[in-house]
């Protein structure tokens, strides 16, 4: 096979680094509002009927949205195997909590309205709350830890050994990042609900969504300042080979300095945090003046800006190591082989546009508000 050499290894690695971002952002934009809606469910909807309206705003789409998460996992496995191996075994118990919460969610959606019993339904409502709120928080905690570096080392045969503990993940900076991502997804869920509902539920969603948008702006700013002054960055100490074999131990890395140096090296990346703020402000304004479509778009832009700001700030680092900086995983030494990256790129170029096309079609078919009348009339078929 020669064909894959038409795209050089270095370029493929950068493309796959960008695609990793696309998948995370796709996940946060789509499944993100499902999680936000879950987290808001007990608060924006009080009666059973209101809750069914809220659940049915995401009822037909959560399954597809959740695949962004599954696909994210699969793509990390295929394109960044060391990242897959190190992060999920390192964050072992945190991953278990996320999986348990995410398993509750599908079951909650599907099973909640299948029995009349009040206790049954209330229990599932709180399961949906957990399924939304807990992952929203933990994903941010994980990002906070990645920015600070994670205590792992690779042995001689590249076997990952994690030296930290579950509670070590819950450090102050990581918790701040957790709250930021929680606020971000609640804002997004609020934006979705103002678009898809009406009446009292909509006005409650507007209130919670606005508070969340304010929280996003404040928390994101605080996290940015903390990152600048309080978190040590990572950088290469020696020469960097960008198209060499994927073996992290072959390069030298030092731990020190500030991540903010990236902004003097690549000033254009400032656009990402600006987008994060502008989007959140836009979502806040949109909710105040009642432009629901614009609110959702602004909220999406905010997510786009915030998540890409993390990736762009850290580039080329993906998962730095505090225990042994030389073990750090970077774009240049933690990817799959040249051939695998190429094959996966071809497959992605064929199927990702298709996915976007049919997903848009499904959203179009389901366009419009979900009302109490809809739920009553189709009580037997909807959630």
């Amino acid at each position, binding site marked *: 096979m020669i064909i894959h050499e038409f795209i050089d290894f270095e370029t493929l690695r950068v493309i796959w680094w960008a695609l990793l971002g696309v998948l995370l952002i796709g996940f946060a934009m789509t499944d993100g509002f499902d999680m936000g809606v879950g987290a808001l469910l007990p608060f924006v909807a009080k009666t059973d009927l209101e809750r069914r309206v809220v659940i049915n705003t995401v009822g037909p789409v959560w399954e597809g949205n959740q695949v962004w998460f599954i696909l994210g996992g699969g793509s990390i496995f*295929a394109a960044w*195997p060391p990242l*897959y*191996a190190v992060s999920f075994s390192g964050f072992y118990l945190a991953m278990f909590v996320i999986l348990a919460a995410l*398993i509750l969610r599908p079951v909650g959606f599907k*099973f909640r309205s299948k029995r009349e019993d009040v206790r049954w339904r209330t229990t599932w409502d709180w399961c949906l709350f957990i399924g939304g709120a807990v992952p929203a928080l933990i994903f941010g905690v994980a990002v906070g830890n990645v920015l600070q570096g994670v205590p792992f080392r690779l042995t001689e045969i590249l076997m990952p050994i994690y030296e930290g503990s579950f509670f070590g993940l819950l450090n102050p900076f990581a918790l701040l990042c957790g709250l930021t991502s929680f606020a971000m997804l609640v804002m997004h869920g609020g934006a979705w609900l103002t678009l898809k509902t009406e009446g009292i539920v909509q006005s409650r969603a507007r209130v919670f969504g606005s508070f969340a948008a304010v929280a996003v702006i404040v928390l994101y700013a605080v996290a940015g300042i903390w990152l600048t002054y309080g978190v040590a960055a990572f950088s290469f100490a020696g020469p960097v080979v960008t198209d060499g074999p994927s073996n992290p131990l072959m390069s030298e890395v030092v731990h020190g300095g500030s991540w903010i140096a990236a902004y003097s090296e690549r000033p254009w990346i400032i656009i990402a945090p600006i987008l994060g703020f502008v989007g959140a402000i836009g979502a806040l304004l949109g909710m105040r003046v009642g432009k629901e479509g614009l609110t959702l778009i602004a909220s999406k832009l905010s997510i786009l800006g915030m998540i890409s700001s993390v990736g762009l700030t850290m580039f080329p680092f993906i998962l730095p190591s505090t225990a042994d900086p030389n073990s750090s995983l970077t774009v240049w030494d933690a990817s799959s082989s040249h051939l695998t990256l190429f094959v996966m790129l071809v497959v992605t170029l064929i*199927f990702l546009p298709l996915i976007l096309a049919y997903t848009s079609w499904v959203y179009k078919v389901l366009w419009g508000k979900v009302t109490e009348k809809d739920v009553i009339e189709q009580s*037997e078929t909807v959630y």
Partner: protein
Amino acid sequence: MELDIVELSRLQFAMTAMYHFLFVPLTLGLSVIVAIMETVYVMTNRPIWRQMTKFWGTLFGINFVLGVATGITMEFQFGMNWSYYSHYVGDVFGAPLAIEGLMAFFMEATFVGLFFFGWDKLSKVAHLVVTWLVAIASNFSALWILIGNGWMQNPVGAEFNPMTMRMEMTSFFEVMFNEVAQAKFVHTVSAGYVVAAFFVLGVSSWYLLKGRHIELARRSIAIAASFGLAGALSVVVLGDESGYSVTHSQKMKLAAIEAMWETEPAPASFTAFGIPDTEARETKYAIHIPYVMGLIGTRSFDKEIPGIKELVEQAEQRIRSGLIAYDALMEIRADVHNIAPEVRARFEEHSADLGFAFLLKRYVEDPRQATEEQIQTAANDTVPQVGPLFWAFRIMVGLGMLFIVTMAFFFWKASVSGMQFPRWSLWLAVLLIPTPWIAAEMGWFVAEYGRQPWTVDGVLPTALSVSQLSIGQVALTLAGFTLFYSVLFVVEMGLMIKYIRKGPYLDTAETEEWFEQRGRIAAQPAE
């Protein structure tokens, strides 16, 4: 067997995977059955078929969601519990998993929402297309997962790269068209069709016994029997194909399934019954059927199938060859920038056996320091536990034969004998509902347990594949998953039974009206 981290991790994988596979086969088969029913509706415009589509669709939905929920664990636990495996083979194994998401699961999950919510929003034909997309996508999903699993059984299209200490893909086409993967795919989806057919047959038979929903039940039996007969025939015939491909890729697994200790002169006999004794390496009270094994395994009269004792000797030789590769590898890694051509040549000559040297890692940190005794123990380790495999395989095959007979009977009664089913046969159909699940789980048990001590056959031992976690961590998640899954299982079964008791409840008025117009017996209304 003491429970170390390897055993605990295996137990957790076995539990979560086998639990996942309670729901997957029903999704595979029922999605197709529902799509067939809706096709009949669109072609004939008879409301009863729409009612059937919606009724079986409801049960499909309750089951589907647990398949999705438990699938989440599957996608992530390779990284969580098998991190060295993930590093070592992610370059090859990750690709089919990711493609499954891109090509199949995304489509399935996106359209399944429209299947339930789109009845009033889509035209008839558009809705039918949506239903078929769900069915096709779920089957494609199985294809890619089995390409992944097939590679673990028969790792083609990849080679070891000493610079990155892992297997890397050399040919995507070889991975994709791996004969083991293709045989497993058809075998597995056929098994799914059998599971779903028995489910529909059993539930419908129960309705007939209770005298409820007669019209729905009869039509459902007609579909289930024809679909189930095709599925049952295919699962056995293609299972044989699977067996044939195992013969040349996984000789040890085959010998263990057959409890074949010695190499017999061709064509080998098939052991129909016996009590294998792994310690003594013999099978007591064996009943042999001459020639059959040789014919199934080699499709010839003159090719030998090697027995376990001979394969252990081969394994020992491969360990010794693997040690040469390991030694060369260490030399290469000591100074990656100056590799002597002689060392590289030595490595490449023996690199196919590198995995066998890793078998020694269980006993000694540096395999090169292994004693003769340790080499002998490691060679013996290549023999999986014979007894459980021997029996699991025979239970699976026996059930497969039973499925063919049962489905043929119902097919004959439904088509030739004018839908007259004796009551005993209806009771039998109800009782048989769980059996295809047992057969399917046995099949996976044989495939995975029979591959031990390897995660990737001949390439990476299971003991080396696990994450470096503490016993406490894995014990905690194992207990957590077990408890959590058990609760979900009880809830799911409760809902299934509730909705089966409730019977068809959608479109009842239209369906009844249609029957009255046709001057036939009205369909039974819901309770």
